[in-house]
Every structure is written in structure tokens, then in C-alpha cells.
């Protein structure tokens, strides 16, 4: 495989990465975007909005907009200005020297890098956390789900549960009452972390019940999910609840595994950027979107920080104009 060299490479294609790509493309930097691989988790091209339906808080859409459609439009806008999209997942990076080295697929184990980048924009986002129970692999897609909008349809008239206490748990539970006869929100605390408007919607919904101070300790079912065992967080008392479906919305973890030991991170794995900038601990590497944001985590803040990363990268490349320019079309021979 030949190695391509680019001025700017973007890793990830959610609101942050695609906004960075739009700005870099309009600055004639011809960004190459590794957008990831299709999957049914939030770790995929288009990011977490691919798993939503109506997005009501993205400015400019008074009637709301479908999440997947919004992301398809972001992508089309980046492509229109010359961003090149590659539907591959980056599996290894070497940031120890510039140009940075990037590998995709299994290539990192054996071969030369697939791509060299002068400036790197990291926008790999965050993925849904799972419970970590052994039954999960067997039952995912068989009554166990991380995507209410994808799968809610199949639970018409059934009793189901949502695990979690944040905005996404409330949103999923509220959405699921369109189909399910009853939705139980299982939460490990006695109060919610969700925003006030989302809490109020859930509390006002007659089909939603709350099971406070409980955690799921086992999932029942072989061919399809039949129920869960829950345990009281204070008394340890256990009970079995029959369910037709279980939706997991317990939060996210940043997709930063490939940067371990190379970029400075917080204890929770989110990348650290310098205040009022997108600069990471490595010169020439910029981070934007949820991968560096464990506070706001909104599509519009991700897009805003993607713009910051593009401008930071462009200025940094200009300041280093002493370097030979990477020729976008040239392929380098193996080193």
C-alpha cells in the first residue's frame, strides 16, 4: 500500500470533524477525512446524531431536523469544497514526529503508514457505554439495544426499560412511549442528571415509571431478551423484572484508545486542550468535539469547536511555512 501525504487529516466525521473539514477545504487545504466505519453504535461516520431522529436544538431548523439527514448534509457540504472522505477507521497513530503517521485497518501491525499528516485534527467523538454484562453480546439486537430510534418500533405494546439518568436516557424513554405500553427508567441514584426540560417531560409522561437506586446485574433470555435482574444499590436486595426490551443509555466514553500515551488526557480519557483553543499536548495536533468535551457535548458546540480546530490548524501550518509543502496528490514511496 502506498502512503499518501496531506497537509491536514481529520479523524472522525461527526459535527466537529465535518465542520473542521468544511473550513479546511474552504481554506484550500484539501483535508482527508477518515470518517470511520459503519456500525450501530455511536462510533461511526456521522457520529451520535446518526442514532437520533428529530434534532430540535440545532439552530437554523425551526421545525427540527432529522439527525441522519443533518449529518448527510454536513458531509455533502465538506465534499462540495473538496474534502476527501475515506470510510475507514484509523487504528494506529504515531505522533512522536512530524509528519504524523496514520494507519488504517490491520495495517498498523505490519506495514508502513497509510497516511502522513502535517496537521492532525482529532474528532473521534465518544461511544455509548455498555453495562459490561456477559449476556450483552448474545442479546444485542435481540431485545437489547443502544439505539431507541432504530429499534423502538419493534416494541409496540410491550413493557420495556431504559437504564440511565441523563438526557439521552430521558429522550429515549420519552421516545419509546410512542410504541411501548410502559417504560421503566432504571437509575442507580435517587435523582436524575438530565436537564430540567427533559426531566419534566419524563415525569409528566404517564407511561414512564422510575425505579430509583437500582442497577442491572443480569439479563435474562437466550433467543431474545426476557427480563433483567436488578439490585438495590443500598440494600442489595435483588428482584427479577420481565421485559420485552432493554435500552442502555448510561453515558459515553471518548474514543481515545489510539492516543494513549501520546496525547494528554483527563482521568476519564477525554483529551485535554489548551484553554480557548483546540491545541493538544502535541504541537500540530488539534482536538474538537466530544473527544475533548465532557461538559457540553452538543452538536452545535462540537461544530463550533470543529471550526476552531480548522482555524488553529490553518494558522499553525502558515506559521510553519518553512517546511516543505506536502503535495496533496503525490504518493510517497515506502520509507
Amino acid at each position, binding site marked *: 500500500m502506498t502512503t499518501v501525504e496531506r497537509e491536514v487529516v481529520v479523524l472522525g466525521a461527526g459535527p466537529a470533524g465535518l465542520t473542521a473539514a468544511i473550513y479546511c477545504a474552504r481554506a484550500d487545504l484539501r483535508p482527508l477525512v477518515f470518517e470511520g466505519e459503519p456500525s450501530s453504535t455511536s462510533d*461511526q461516520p456521522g457520529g451520535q446524531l*446518526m442514532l*437520533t431522529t428529530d434534532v430540535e436544538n440545532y439552530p437554523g431548523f425551526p421545525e427540527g431536523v*432529522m439527525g441522519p439527514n443533518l449529518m448527510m448534509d454536513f458531509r455533502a457540504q465538506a465534499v462540495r469544497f473538496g474534502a476527501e472522505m475515506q470510510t475507514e477507521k484509523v487504528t494506529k497513530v504515531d505522533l512522536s514526529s512530524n509528519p504524523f503517521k496514520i494507519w488504517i*485497518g490491520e495495517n498498523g501491525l505490519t506495514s508502513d503508514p497509510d497516511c502522513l499528516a502535517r496537521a492532525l485534527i482529532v474528532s473521534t467523538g465518544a461511544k455509548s457505554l455498555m453495562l459490561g454484562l456477559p449476556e450483552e453480546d448474545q442479546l444485542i*439486537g435481540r*431485545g437489547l439495544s443502544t439505539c431507541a430510534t*432504530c*429499534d423502538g418500533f419493534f416494541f409496540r405494546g410491550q413493557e420495556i426499560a431504559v437504564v440511565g439518568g441523563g438526557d439521552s436516557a430521558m429522550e429515549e424513554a420519552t421516545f419509546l412511549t410512542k410504541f411501548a405500553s410502559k417504560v421503566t427508567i432504571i437509575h442507580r441514584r435517587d435523582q436524575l442528571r438530565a436537564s430540567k426540560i427533559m426531566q419534566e417531560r419524563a415525569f409528566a409522561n404517564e407511561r414512564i415509571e422510575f425505579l430509583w437506586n437500582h442497577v442491572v446485574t443480569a439479563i435474562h433470555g437466550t433467543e431474545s431478551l426476557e427480563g433483567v435482574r436488578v439490585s438495590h444499590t443500598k440494600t442489595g436486595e435483588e428482584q427479577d423484572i420481565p421485559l420485552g426490551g432493554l435500552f442502555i443509555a448510561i453515558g459515553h466514553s471518548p474514543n481515545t484508545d489510539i492516543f494513549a500515551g501520546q496525547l494528554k488526557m483527563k482521568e476519564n480519557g477525554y483529551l485535554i486542550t489548551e484553554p480557548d483553543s483546540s491545541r493538544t499536548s502535541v504541537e500540530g495536533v488539534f482536538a474538537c468535539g466530544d473527544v475533548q468535551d465532557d461538559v457540553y457535548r452538543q452538536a452545535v458546540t462540537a461544530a463550533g469547536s470543529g471550526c476552531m480546530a480548522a482555524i488553529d490548524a490553518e494558522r499553525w501550518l502558515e506559521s510553519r511555512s518553512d517546511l516543505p509543502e506536502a503535495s496533496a496528490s503525490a504518493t510517497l514511496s515506502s520509507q
Partner: protein
Amino acid sequence: MAGNITSLSTATFAEEVNSSAKPVLVDFWAEWCGPCKMIAPILDEIANEHGEKVTIAKLNVDDDPSIALEHKVMSIPTLLLFQDGQVAKRIVGAKSKAALLADLAEFL
């Protein structure tokens, strides 16, 4: 673009799937499913490249929920590969082209 992909309905499902000499891969999808949109172009490519070995078909679960129910589809996208009318392979969730081809290798 999707010229090689057949759209199935409850009315045509049995005839198209059960009486097919080739294996039939049925993509259960819906308009509101983001991951379904991500794999649609991949299925187009697989239909173009491997159409002589396997028939690719799609079934909209909104329009025809009974077939999905019958085959216990509880998540989309789900791909079911039918051979002689029987489900020979079940693939749940969107995947990369390479991963899909690996899952389907024995039929291609």
C-alpha cells in the same frame, strides 16, 4: 444505483425468497434508521460485485412489519441470509464492507 437490489413486500416475500435458486440477503430497514442509511451504499456495491452468487433484497419494516415480526427482527439494520427458504445467517447492526463480506464469505 440500486438497480440490482429488489424491494420486497409481504406479498412478494415468499415467492422471491423461498423459490430463489441463489441465496437471498434481505436487508430489513426503515427511513428513520441512520445506520441503515450508512450500509445502503455498501449493499449496492455488494449487489454489483457479487450479484451472480447472492441476490440482495430489501424490506421496509414500516411498510411490511409482519415479515420482520415473523423472523424476530428486533433491531435494524438486520440482514438475514435465506438459503432454500431458511435463515442461514443473521447479521445485526451496521458494519463495514470488509466485515460484511467476511460474514458472507461462505456464500460468495
